[in-house]
């Protein structure tokens, strides 16, 4: 199928030397901190998010050990509150979204035939902010000051009166800090996908993974302000005595829930959507055909991204709002299952009509379909107000969202890791080790979380640090705990597999899978400039298309080689007509300095060191001014001015 298995020969030796000079980074400590290369930043996102995932997973193991038997005393109630809160916060905010944005950072420019993201310095800044915000939040745990009110931090329990100490200040400030990173990344993805696509890649030829990332980025732009507003008001209430959530002073506690879930439900799709994009990217290589129903999957992505903003009240069906109000959101919650189901049927049809190549990435995709569909079934049940009110705050809900998030996000991520590991590291993974990892993760996941449906229906509430033996929950809890250890062993094998590949894996060819998208036309790992010649795209599957392959061969014109500087090509938004070459920025330390100044600002606010916070704010303003200051025109530029 594949017509291009090695990087194109369309550029001359001189062009390649110039590209290497303009885009390459000489190894040094400064270069490590100053890099703006999307591939290095993407890898850092993946590693850092993976590290936070390990920490949050260890939290979960401690919790499952505590719940293995009734009235255990492994941790105190106060410690348990911090563990489950940090587990949820880290998995949602510090692992899932950044991990998927890591894939996006590495892959989007490669998939659309660009040499970098649209704003490389903003990209580096987003990573440093993510790292610092994650460390800011995790650092609170050893001091017993971690958030302790669950990941959705409902008021009035999270207010100063009911929850003194730094716990919820860490939450509010940490998420405000992190939000800067997520917003910056989202803007970057949108502009990159709209302006930097290779010539010929009109909207109907954009890879589904890129559609998913762009839809996710739009969701972030619209959803995150609600969370930021919520956290800003919470911090003001706690620290400065405002009354946004104080009914006695005219505030409203439900305001928190509305704003939180206006962000929170789209966030479920913010997490799942790029993962579904990974599934659509992985399937063609292992079914030897394109995904069935491309326009309908695009429809599904767009529809989910929009409808997800109209379902938030289904998280509030137990708050006593008018039944008619519920019905508007119940209708949307029911209908949103249609586009979700559409994607599932499209993938099943793809597998049915294609020729399956059973490798580890495909196993994880199949595991995803099974697990995510089961999570979807219980999701539909929540759309029915009467049922939802019966199981609210029980372990049934915990079972549901772990099926959705592990099934819908972690399985595709693992598929993506195995699929793109050769491209990211230049090394192949060990197939048998990968298969063991899959079966252990799959079995461990279901043994852990399926019993939670049962003891949720039996009445066990979530977020309890222990329970009595009388209700008969003990046996099922023990099964869940055994499953969690099985799951941990499976995930450990994934890590071992990655380390093994990096250290001892055999060198990967440019296209080990005969993949269909443009990243497989680059070297493994890609050169700093990605493409010696920017391709001209002629179909939805450019790697399976002779004309696209020919476009990067001998005879390629200089407007797609662009070796005279650090350049990439701007194209039109809808049909990717070439517009002009643009200069891309050099590596710089400014993003790191700005992120460090923000870290100082948020830390000072946490400890109420307001003079230090003022200095940090001035440093932030000064760094932004230096960053945005127009560069002095080069002498040769001045000469051409008439």
């Amino acid at each position, binding site marked *: 199928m594949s017509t291009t298995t090695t990087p194109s020969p369309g550029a001359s030796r001189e062009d390649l030397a110039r590209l290497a000079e303009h885009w390459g980074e000489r190894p040094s400590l400064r270069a490590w901190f100053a890099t703006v290369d999307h591939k290095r930043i993407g890898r850092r996102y993946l590693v850092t998010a993976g590290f936070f995932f390990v920490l949050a997973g260890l939290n979960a193991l401690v919790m499952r050990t505590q719940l293995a038997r009734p009235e255990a005393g492994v941790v105190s109630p106060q410690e348990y509150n911090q563990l489950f809160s940090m587990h949820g916060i880290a998995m949602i905010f510090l692992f899932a979204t950044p991990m998927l944005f890591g894939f996006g950072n590495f892959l989007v420019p490669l998939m659309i035939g660009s040499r970098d993201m649209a704003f490389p310095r903003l990209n580096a800044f987003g990573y440093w902010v993510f790292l610092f915000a994650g460390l800011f939040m995790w650092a609170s745990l050893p001091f017993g000051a971690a958030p302790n009110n669950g990941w959705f931090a409902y008021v009035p329990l999270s207010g100063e009166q009911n929850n003194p100490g730094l716990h919820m200040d860490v939450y509010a400030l940490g998420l405000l800090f992190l939000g800067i990173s997520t917003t910056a990344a989202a803007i970057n993805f949108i502009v990159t996908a709209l302006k930097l696509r290779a010539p010929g890649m009109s909207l*109907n030829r954009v890879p589904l993974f890129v559609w998913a990332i762009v839809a996710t980025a739009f969701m972030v732009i619209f959803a995150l302000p609600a969370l930021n507003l919520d956290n800003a008001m919470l911090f003001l209430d706690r620290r400065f005595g405002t009354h946004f959530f104080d009914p006695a002073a005219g505030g409203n506690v439900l305001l928190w829930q509305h704003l939180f879930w206006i962000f929170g439900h789209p966030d479920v799709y913010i997490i799942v959507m790029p993962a579904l994009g990974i599934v659509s990217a992985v399937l063609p290589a292992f079914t030897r055909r394109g995904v069935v129903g*491309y326009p309908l999957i695009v429809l599904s992505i767009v529809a989910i991204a929009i409808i997800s903003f*109209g379902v938030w009240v289904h998280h509030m069906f137990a708050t006593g*709002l008018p*039944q*008619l*109000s519920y019905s508007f959101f119940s*209708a949307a919650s029911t209908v949103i299952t249609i586009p979700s189901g559409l994607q599932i049927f499209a993938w099943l049809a793809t597998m049915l009509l294609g020729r399956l190549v059973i490798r580890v990435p495909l196993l994880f995709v199949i595991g995803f379909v099974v697990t995510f569909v089961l999570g979807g079934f219980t999701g539909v049940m929540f759309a029915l107000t009467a049922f939802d009110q019966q199981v609210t705050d029980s372990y049934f809900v915990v079972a549901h969202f772990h099926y959705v998030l592990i099934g819908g996000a972690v399985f595709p991520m693992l598929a993506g890791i195995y699929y793109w590991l050769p491209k990211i590291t230049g090394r192949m993974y060990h197939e048998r080790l990968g298969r063991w990892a899959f079966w252990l993760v799959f079995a461990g996941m279901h043994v852990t979380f399926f019993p939670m449906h049962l003891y949720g229906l039996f009445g066990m509430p979530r977020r309890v640090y222990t329970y009595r033996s009388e209700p008969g929950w003990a046996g099922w809890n023990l099964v869940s705990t055994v499953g969690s250890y099985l799951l941990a062993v499976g995930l450990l094998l994934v890590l071992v597999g990655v380390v093994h590949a990096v250290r001892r894996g055999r060198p990967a060819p440019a296209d080990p899978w005969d993949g269909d998208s443009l990243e497989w036309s680059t070297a493994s790992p890609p050169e700093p400039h990605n493409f010696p010649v920017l391709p001209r795209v002629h179909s939805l599957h450019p790697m399976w298309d002779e004309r696209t392959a020919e476009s990067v061969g001998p005879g390629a014109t200089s407007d797609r080689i662009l070796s005279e500087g650090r350049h990439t090509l701007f194209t039109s938004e*809808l049909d990717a007509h070439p517009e002009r070459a643009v200069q891309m920025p050099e590596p710089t330390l400014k993003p790191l300095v700005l992120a460090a100044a923000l870290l100082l600002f948020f830390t000072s606010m946490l400890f109420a060191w307001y003079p230090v916070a003022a200095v940090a704010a001035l440093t932030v303003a000064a760094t932004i001014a230096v960053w945005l200051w127009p560069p002095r025109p080069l002498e040769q530029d001045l000469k051409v001015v008439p």
Partner: protein
Amino acid sequence: MSTPPGPHARLTGGLLLWFGVLGGAVAWAVHLLAAWGLDELACAAGSERVSAVPLVQAVGLAVVIPALVTVGSLLVAALVWRRTMRAQRAGAQDRAFGRSRMLAVVGVWANLLFLTIIVLSGIAVLVLPPCQR
């Protein structure tokens, strides 16, 4: 090999195409905010009227008007789909036709989804008293 038929060219871009793709989505968003907002605020104030208009009728308008806009958007999307298909059959080579056709398909199905949500909400308005808790 032929040039794109002139009258069809305007359907490959511009506001009409985007109305066909996103009109239903915008109409649904307006419906949700208006219907929910009216119901929530009026009931919280202890009234079943919005000025002089009964609450049920006000919410009903917030259902019917967006539903009609969505039907209009659906028709436009269907029209774009038919015309771009004809243009492609006539041999138009511009890839804008392929892109517009895909957007039209997205528009047709998206509008059907949004119309379904609005109709389901309309049934609830007929069945449920506006302030029942």
